[in-house]
């Protein structure tokens, strides 16, 4: 959390995260470009530009795969949450690596001609009417555009400026970029090589991304299908038994309009807020109460239980809900209060 905008709000976790990420990227590129060629069994070595293109291109693809896998993996096993924490930095690194791949391709394949190199990227291959030979470069251009756009708008300034729903929708564009990269490889490099290894790696990566998302989606669908039933007094609904919420933990209930609400138990009292974090719409109900504040599991944003406001000097606010407890059951008024509205926590007994 940060009360003002800084290029990066560094902390120990972010530094460790970035060091590990850079180490992994450096290891991959070093091995690919300098050690692996010593084990090639070919007449003469590939030219340096092609090796660099292959190294940076595959590295960008693997990083995109990692970025897309971290989300559902963290939903399936909370121990992966630390990988989610600074994922945006990997995204920025991925954009830089993809740019290097693209620049190398342009510099090697499209420069030194009588015409402008960027013009030739578009004019070099115009076989739009055929699958084999289709200008796969266009998929790469689209993916690169998306990666750079997402990297440029990854800062919290843009998150606040665009609002979390718009920002989130924009950054879902990574899925389109990933699909474009798979097509870029499938219609390009995979058509050009005889060795099946790249095809196997790409297929496994794409399958892993799809399988993790399906698994996480099925689990969440099972949870989301449990809509809080109406109580005999309108508009109250039955959220569940008090005993279902452990101390300093949360419970998510879904209203009949699909809105998720998080109910927390702290020091013998219950409080309810929207389940969507004001930062990136993270699932607050999967968080904890830490230092008396609801703490988002994604990036640690915090909110007070009674009014859904972030502690000063922070300014984020959540919609709050009214609660009652009767016969050990939690009753919830499904009408949200304006964000930041004070609602006194309800005693469990």
């Amino acid at each position, binding site marked *: 959390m940060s009360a003002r905008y800084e290029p990066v709000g560094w902390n120990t976790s972010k530094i460790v995260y970035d060091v590990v990420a850079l180490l992994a990227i450096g*290891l991959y590129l070093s*091995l690919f470009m300098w050690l692996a*060629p010593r084990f090639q069994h070919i*007449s003469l070595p590939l030219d340096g530009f092609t090796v660099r293109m292959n190294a940076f291109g595959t590295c960008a693809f693997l990083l995109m795969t990692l970025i897309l896998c971290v989300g559902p993996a963290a939903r399936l096993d909370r121990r992966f949450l630390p990988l989610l924490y600074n994922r945006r930095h990997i995204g920025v690194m991925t954009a830089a690596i993809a740019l290097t791949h693209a620049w190398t391709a342009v510099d090697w394949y499209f420069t030194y001609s009588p015409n402008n190199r960027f013009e030739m990227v578009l004019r*070099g*291959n115009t076989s739009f009417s*055929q699958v084999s030979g289709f200008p796969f470069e266009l998929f790469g251009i689209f993916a690169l555009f998306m990666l750079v756009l997402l990297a440029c708008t990854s800062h919290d300034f843009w998150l606040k400026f665009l609002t979390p729903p718009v920002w989130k929708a924009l950054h879902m564009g990574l899925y389109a970029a990933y699909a474009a990269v798979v097509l870029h490889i499938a219609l390009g490099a995979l058509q050009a090589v005889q060795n099946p290894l790249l095809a196997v790696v790409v297929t496994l990566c794409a399958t892993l991304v799809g399988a993790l998302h399906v698994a996480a989606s099925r689990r969440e669908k099972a949870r989301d299908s449990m809509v809080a039933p109406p109580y005999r007094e309108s508009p109250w609904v039955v959220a569940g038994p008090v005993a*279902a919420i452990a101390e300093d933990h949360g419970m998510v209930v879904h209203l009949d309009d699909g809105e998720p609400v998080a109910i927390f138990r702290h020091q013998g009292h219950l409080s309810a807020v929207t389940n969507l974090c004001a930062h990136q719409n993270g699932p607050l109900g999967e968080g904890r109460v830490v230092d008396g504040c609801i703490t988002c599991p994604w990036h640690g944003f915090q909110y007070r239980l009674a009014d859904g406001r972030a502690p000063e000097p922070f300014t984020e606010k959540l919609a709050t809900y009214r609660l009652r407890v009767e016969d050990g059951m939690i009753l919830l008024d499904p009408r949200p209060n304006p964000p930041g509205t004070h609602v006194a926590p309800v005693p469990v007994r």
Partner: protein
Amino acid sequence: MLPRCLCDECLCDEGGWVECLGDKCRCEMSRRHFFIGWSPASARPIAAFLAAVVVSGLIGLGGLAMALGSRVDDPGAGDITGDRVLTGMLVEFPYPVLVLDPDETYPAGHAVLLSGGGKRGVQGEAAKLAGQRLQISGTGVRRGSIDMLLVGEMKAAPASASGPPQAPALVPMGEWRLTGEICDGKCVTGVMRPGNGLAHKACANVCIMGGVPPVLVTTSKVAGTNFLLMGDPAGKALPDAFRDHVGLPRQMEGTVERIADLLIFRTDVSRAVVP
């Protein structure tokens, strides 16, 4: 002792239970295990797990780098051969070719494809000098039987002791149906490795559009070579239709001619088909 909770909220294998609620549980472990980014201490309970993930990831990435970086297709043995000064007769079909004087190595003469620096041909310069005996300096590139000179300077050659230059003979070799890949003669000869294949298609198109001679790399040898200079049936450069066929396996019909040791394949490239 409470039974083991089967919900996924808890990471305990056994013990430490505070309360088990069927689909939720409370235990010391689950209470402690909650990572907060700005609190590094919160990662301690899962430090071993994270270390295992990082180490596994590094090993996996390293293995992939070695596998993907070492298992590559052979790009062929084409390579740059260094600075050369060649003397011979300049001819155009319509791409410029320098036919060297016969010597011990090439008793029937040797034909060298000519190209410019970058993705450019030398048709403009060659058109003024066609039919003349020239001395051309430049950088040589060779792959198997195909030879190319990246032209630096062209000038009139000293008079030959054998008298005035004579146009090299063009020998017809009949009608052929050939299967192979259309490449640009510069990259495939060895300026790039690999300089062929679909990933290189756009580059080959740009080269040929710039005037670099197109070459058909055949799947089977024709009169001892896999490399044939291409032209259209009327003796002109390939029409724009070639672009859709470059970098892909294609079968074409046409006539083959030989000048010195170079084969020339004249074909209507728009009729190329997938073999």
